[in-house]
């Protein structure tokens, strides 16, 4: 990929031979090295896991409709397994891999104009590690389950009689390596497979986000690995590192665990922020505002995320000195994220906004991330955190950022790249209805929980004092609304595979390289060499009636029309 013949037009016509049809049969998928197929397999796996984790969530919420037992057969023990599984599945099987492994795998090489990621075999191996990790985690259900909470705090996790703890820990350990190898692959890809002309500051912001995420994946996840290994050994052999009667310290576990798990939440949110940069700029047809800041803030957030883990431990008996330091640094981590929100809003200013489904998801993200981020302030403040720690306030906060932001970002990205991945358009009206339903349901479910928490209701409670019931009922109703929104979304997306309009190469008018290949892409991504330019410059884009999609108007493209080349950017 060196010099480019600019006189040759882009060839983006849909072909019967694309990455889906190129080879057929189960084995051709099971042993594929094609990043697009691996991405699709991840996508299906992650969405199925999301459904399973969602079922556990609905069981939890339904059980909480009344104090005491609500669902016949669901005792406190069973309930404890429900919320543990909900958390473990959502964190380790869904949110952490979802954007990097499912969407990133598919889109990133194409965005780079490359033929694949740097290590395709490692990519497939990562996917198989995910499968093995998932199998171990599921097998734990058959061996007695685990009821430790997804955080596995000692000494409870090392002494609970539940029989599935070690299989679950092993499963998560394996999933950790899946994450590490994906991150490793992405870092090398971004460093080594950028095309000529795409300098670091010419990269789409989605790639900056994925890159920053990959740094965290590679550096933080090994610490989770060793933590889980120590837990397994402690549980099996009672070596005593976390057992006070043997000279160990239970709080040491918390330090180990959160050293990974705090950066992990940035693994979840950074890629979603990258997606939002793409969604807003493309669907407002407007150059992103403050590109450099957004790009560098992703790296800054990645680095700072390693310095704040102790804010999960303010009440654990950690020394006041450490508490103070962690509180202070946690506040400073919030600032880059806040500025990103202002930058995205400024991108809407003087834009050409289309309120289609991806844009609605991006707007939902802005609202929900604002709430999630702002409520982080209550928790980072030392004295208010004393009251709010381990209450439903925390539950609401992290659902706003993990689900309302990271997951919403992922689904927005899914809609944005759906035509590219599947070659089909989904029903736009249903898309909007689905988004709005999920948004309303989400807020009813989780905003209520802020009140529940600040009024004093602790989390992980099966039974509760009667005065909290009204909040729980409202929250549960919201969860049913949200579930119906997700079911509607699943329906119309699946329906589009069978009857949706065929997608043009560039349905939204994007300028990054993935819109310069056919939908779905051919086996080796591009039929003709894509052109690298400013991926947020929409001045040359126009709607083409014949293609029913956007194209680059050659007269307006400065890379093709030398008369325009002399024009400066603003």
């Amino acid at each position, binding site marked *: *990929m*060196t*010099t*480019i013949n600019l006189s040759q037009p882009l060839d983006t016509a849909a072909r019967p031979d694309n990455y889906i049809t190129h080879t057929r049969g189960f084995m051709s998928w099971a042993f594929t090295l094609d990043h697009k197929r691996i991405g699709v397999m991840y996508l299906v796996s992650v969405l199925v896991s999301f459904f399973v984790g969602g079922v556990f969530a609905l069981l939890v919420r339904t059980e909480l409709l009344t104090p005491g037992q609500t669902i016949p057969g669901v005792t406190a*023990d069973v309930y404890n397994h429900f919320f543990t599984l909900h958390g473990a599945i959502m964190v380790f099987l869904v949110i952490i891999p979802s954007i990097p492994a499912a969407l990133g795998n598919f889109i990133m090489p194409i965005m780079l104009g490359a*033929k*694949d990621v*740097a290590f*395709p075999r*490692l990519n497939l191996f990562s996917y198989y590690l995910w499968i093995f990790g998932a199998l171990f985690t599921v097998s734990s259900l058959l*061996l*007695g389950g685990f009821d430790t909470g997804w955080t596995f705090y000692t000494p409870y996790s090392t002494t*609970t*009689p539940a*029989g599935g703890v070690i299989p679950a820990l092993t499963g998560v350990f394996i999933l950790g390596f899946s994450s*590490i190898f994906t991150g*490793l692959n992405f*870092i*090398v890809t971004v*460093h*080594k497979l950028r*095309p*000529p*002309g*795409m*300098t670091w500051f010419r990269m789409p912001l989605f790639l900056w986000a994925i890159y920053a995420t990959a740094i965290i994946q*590679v*550096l933080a996840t*090994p*610490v989770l*690995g*060793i*933590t889980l290994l*120590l837990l397994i050994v402690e*549980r*099996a*052999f*009672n070596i*005593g*590192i976390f057992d*006070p*009667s*043997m*000279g160990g*310290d239970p709080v*040491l576990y918390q330090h*180990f665990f959160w050293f990974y798990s705090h950066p992990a939440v940035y693994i979840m949110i950074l890629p979603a922020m990258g997606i939002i940069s793409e969604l807003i700029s493309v669907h407002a047809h407007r150059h992103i505002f403050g590109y450099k800041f957004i790009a560098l803030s992703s790296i800054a957030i990645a680095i700072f995320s390693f310095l704040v883990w102790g804010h999960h431990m303010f009440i654990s008996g950690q020394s006041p000195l450490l508490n103070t330091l962690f509180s202070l640094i946690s506040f400073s981590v919030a600032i880059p994220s806040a500025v990103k929100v202002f930058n995205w809003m400024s991108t809407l200013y003087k834009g050409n906004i289309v309120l289609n489904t991806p844009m609605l998801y991006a707007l939902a993200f802005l609202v929900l991330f604002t709430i999630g981020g702002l409520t982080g302030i209550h928790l980072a403040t030392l004295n208010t955190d004393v009251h709010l720690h381990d209450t439903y306030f925390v539950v609401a906060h992290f659902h706003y950022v993990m689900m309302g932001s990271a997951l919403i970002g992922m689904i927005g990205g899914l809609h944005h790249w759906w035509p590219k991945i599947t070659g089909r358009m989904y029903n736009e009206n249903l898309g909007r209805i689905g988004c709005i339903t999920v948004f309303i349901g989400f807020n009813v479910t989780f905003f209520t929980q802020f009140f529940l928490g600040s009024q004093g209701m602790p989390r992980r409670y099966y039974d509760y004092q009667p005065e909290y019931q009204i909040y729980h009922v409202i929250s549960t109703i919201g969860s049913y609304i949200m579930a119906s929104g997700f079911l509607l979304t699943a329906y119309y997306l699946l329906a589009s595979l069978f009857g949706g309009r065929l997608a043009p190469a560039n349905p939204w008018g994007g300028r990054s390289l993935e819109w310069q290949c056919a939908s779905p892409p051919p086996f*080796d991504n591009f039929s003709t*060499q894509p*052109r*690298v*330019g400013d991926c947020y*410059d929409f*001045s040359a884009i126009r709607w083409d009636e014949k293609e029913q999609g956007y194209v680059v108007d050659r007269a307006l493209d*400065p*890379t093709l029309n030398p008369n*325009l*080349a002399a*024009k400066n*950017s603003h």
Partner: protein
Amino acid sequence: MTTLQSQPNHAGDAHGADGAHDGAHGSAEHAKYPFLQHHFDTPHHQFDSAKLGMWLFLATEVLFFGGLFVAYAVLRNRFPEVFSYSSHYLDTIMGGINTCVLILSSLTMALAVRFAQTNRKTGLIICLILTFMGAIGFMVIKYFEYSHKIHDNLVWGTTFYVPPHDAAGELEAKELSVAPTTSITLNPVNPAVFAVPTLAPTPAVDASAIKQASRAPAGMATPTQMAKAEGLPTGEHDPSFAHPATHLVDKKMPANSHVFFAIYYAMTGLHGVHVLAGMVVIAWLLKRAIRGDFSSDYFTPVDVGGLYWHIVDLIWIFLFPLFYLIH
């Protein structure tokens, strides 16, 4: 709007300016170098990427072990007397030999890379074999070290306090203040009653008592155990410690000494696992070398395999002084 730059972004790019059809020039390179994967432009491009990938993997290994180093630091800080005393129970000579063996094997590995780079297949094969033998030597010495200690119950957990050679099983775990754990049994008959392990979740005595109480000079061993340990027959051991259950009757041994051995086995054990993995890698490289896969054009696997082996060596170079040398 910025202008398009069309210079290549990587050095060492040997092909010409004609990029009219990526396929044409691409397939020429790819035809010439069968090992060149389709998404890389040149062998150098592929080699660079592989090296970057391996360095990143090494970073993950450093962090993986880093957690254990932190645990070591925390425990050493809490129990300094345990660490300075218990390290006497390790055999410095064996550890020193292991260190030399690993360093030499790193040398032979580096030589192997050099031989691969300079097309000297015989030298490559010999050096790989020597490296492999070094690894075996390391594991053999480690086997002797471990078996010696396990023989004496110088192990992790509460087993530390059970005298060895207790074939009669008289000194049951029950005698201890904390019931030891050995296995986890499942309850397949009625999974609804969740599996009942033989773990004792809470000790018979209030476990929250701030631990330093030892009911015998040597930590958590009971007087009965010590008395019985006194009467057990001797075996062949390090002559400076003439008694098999030395640590149980050693009046100078501080309380909580099991902690030292726990972290010792964790770290050296994990390191040993990595040595075994390294042996698999070297064996695979050997197979490919014999098959003639490597040349001055393509020696990437040897190079990155060598990098892995070097870090395995490097980790041992940190472990050795921390456990064997500093008192």
